[in-house]
């Protein structure tokens, strides 16, 4: 095939397509429901995808594919959503044009901007499942800038629901993907029975099948996500109710509530968030008189903000209240025998603030009706950590307290490091792994029952997974494999026999029989049929 010739045709034809797409987008700005313009966008993106894929311009093909998918959704919906979506489509077109320039210049087109690709995909995939959860009242985006309007919700937050409302259209798309699986199956079967397994048909069929099943997995995962709004929506009202009882005033702002999280994670975050809000109003925000005396507005301000971070969502509960009395907290920890007095004095403010996550600690001068026996914060931490997340707290006397919950967006699929320990294969969440060390056994220093090694001039404890999990004696190799991991915020070197590699696994819940073993965060079945347990490093050490 004469590639140069096709490249020239591609450049010419794609440029025409882009020009037409530009005109269609302008038409859509004037009339977001312009069916002809929507159809043109869809067809042009499709056409560009086909050409680009033929020439192995994968980044062009991928971006065009995303645009095509997006336009498919737009077509189903009947219109382009105002503002953002239109801007997104323009961005997509501009990126395509930039890629075409590269092709013209004879260089490989650059990879697509991941955030653009994600943006083109994200709302489309989640929208149908999310729609029923959206309230008919003020949009969450607007709530970011204005105090949330009172909503007719009760103070209590709805508990986890086991039913999921799904739009019929979503199910239809699901079924059509299942149809594709059936189609692929028959293709593979035909190839196998025709005895043409060796001329590529079989391979091709399998490839298609893999793609379609991947698509099905993506759709299924999307079904599991739902906007954070579902659990934060009742919080402003709950906060005001708590404030009213305490004779305080509070303004609540919600932001980022449109972000989506795995349903199973979201449901479990509801109680911790209620607790944080109660704490903030009850212990953080002062009475109007105290606030006036401190030169603050009489009404306290409580911000509940969700942000997207890499692979995570961070939900922040921020108040402008009195902050935590760290001296009091230190004293209380010493009084309860949790902390040696000398150590207490050495704690940094951040470390001292983190004491609130210890069970049984509370500085509230008196136990109030609504909250505060300190039972909450340790439960908050336990819940968030069990979800594979982390909690942190920041406080400034007189200025307020900020608590951050960081949780993974999806629980089900995780990238793991597979290690061999005492003849067993175990999985460690890759997010917790910093790097893998190969250290001479002599560099691991024994000090009593503890072992340490020097990493970047820092003494790091060495924990032998084999001993901890009672899988036999630790390996005695001359060269030790240590997995440098983060355990509750600290670096720890986990001793293993061998590193087997990385893998994406679908994490299944631990079978009930083993549910009592805290170190097990889940399990999966590997491609060869072997079950592998996923370790929760926080619970191992």
């Amino acid at each position: 095939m004469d590639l140069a010739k096709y490249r020239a045709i591609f450049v010419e034809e794609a440029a025409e397509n882009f020009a037409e797409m530009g005109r269609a987008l302008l038409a859509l700005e004037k009339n977001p429901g312009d069916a002809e313009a929507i159809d043109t966008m869809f067809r042009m993106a499709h056409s560009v995808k086909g050409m680009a894929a033929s020439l192995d311009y994968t980044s062009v093909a991928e971006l065009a594919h995303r645009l095509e998918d997006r336009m498919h959704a737009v077509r189903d919906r009947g219109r382009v959503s105002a503002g953002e979506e239109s801007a997104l489509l323009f961005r997509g077109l501009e990126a395509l044009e930039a890629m075409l320039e590269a092709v013209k210049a004879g260089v490989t087109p650059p990879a697509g901007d991941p955030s653009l690709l994600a943006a083109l995909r994200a709302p489309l995939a989640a929208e149908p499942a999310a729609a029923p959860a959206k309230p008919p009242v003020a949009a969450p985006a607007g709530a970011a800038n204005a105090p949330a309007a009172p909503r007719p919700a009760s103070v209590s937050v709805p508990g986890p629901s086991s039913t999921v409302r799904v739009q019929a259209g979503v199910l239809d798309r699901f079924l059509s993907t299942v149809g594709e699986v059936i189609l692929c199956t028959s293709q593979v079967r035909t190839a196998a029975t025709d005895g043409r397994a060796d001329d590529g048909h079989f391979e091709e069929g399998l490839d298609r099948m893999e793609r379609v099943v991947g698509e099905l997995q993506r759709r299924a995962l999307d079904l599991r996500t739902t906007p954070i709004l579902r659990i934060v929506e009742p919080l402003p009202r709950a906060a005001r109710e708590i404030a009213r009882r305490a004779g305080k005033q509070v303004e609540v702002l919600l932001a980022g509530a449109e972000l989506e999280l795995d349903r199973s994670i979201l449901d479990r975050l509801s109680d911790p968030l209620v607790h944080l809000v109660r704490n903030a109003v009850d212990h953080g925000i002062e009475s109007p008189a105290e606030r006036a005396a401190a030169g603050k507005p009489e009404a306290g301000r409580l911000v509940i903000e969700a942000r997207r971070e890499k692979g995570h969502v961070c939900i922040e509960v921020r108040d402008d209240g009195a902050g935590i009395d760290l001296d009091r907290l230190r004293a209380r920890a010493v009084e309860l025998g949790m902390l040696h007095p000398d150590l207490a004095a050495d704690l940094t403010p951040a470390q001292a603030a983190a004491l609130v996550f210890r069970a049984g600690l509370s500085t509230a001068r008196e136990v109030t009706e609504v909250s505060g026996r300190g039972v909450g914060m340790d439960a908050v931490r336990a819940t968030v950590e069990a979800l594979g997340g982390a909690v942190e707290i920041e406080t400034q006397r007189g200025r307020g307290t900020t608590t951050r919950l960081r949780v993974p967006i999806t629980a089900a699929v995780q990238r793991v490091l597979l290690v061999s320990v005492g003849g067993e294969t175990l999985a460690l969440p890759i997010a917790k792994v910093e790097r893998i060390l190969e250290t001479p056994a002599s560099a691991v220093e024994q000090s009593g029952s503890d072992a340490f090694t020097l990493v970047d001039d820092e003494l790091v404890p060495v924990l032998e997974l084999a001993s901890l999990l009672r899988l036999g004696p630790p390996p005695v190799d001359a060269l030790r494999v240590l997995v440098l991991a983060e355990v509750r915020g600290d670096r720890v070197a986990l001793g293993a026999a061998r590193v087997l590699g990385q893998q994406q696994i679908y994490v299944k819940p631990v079978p009930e029989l083993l549910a009592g073993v805290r170190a097990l965060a889940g399990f999966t079945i590997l491609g060869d049929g072997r079950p592998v347990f996923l370790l929760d490093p926080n619970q191992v050490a």
Partner: protein
Amino acid sequence: MARILVADDASFMRQMIREIVEAQGHEVVGEASDGDEVVEEFKRLHPDVVTMDIVMPRRSGIDAVKSIIELDRKACIVMCSALGQESLVKEALAAGARDFIVKPFKPDAVVATLSKVVEKPE
């Protein structure tokens, strides 16, 4: 050897198919760039095989299949689809298309599919 009508809105794709099939000794008797044109060309040329893009302006590939099958129940149409369009392919097969090839085209796959439909006329 077969007389082939190639329908695709992208001349890039038409050219590519033409090159692949002509290398096998088939003859491309016509090209069409939209769903209306392919039906007109089919009436005029009576080709042995039509390669039909699914997504085309004016009349979709699937509607064009329906129109052509109405004209000639024995018409031999091969759909050209992209990945992720399997449900449309199914629809086209149900409407009477004989087989399909997937973009980006692999010459071998195109040739194999064509010889299959040409050798096994229904």
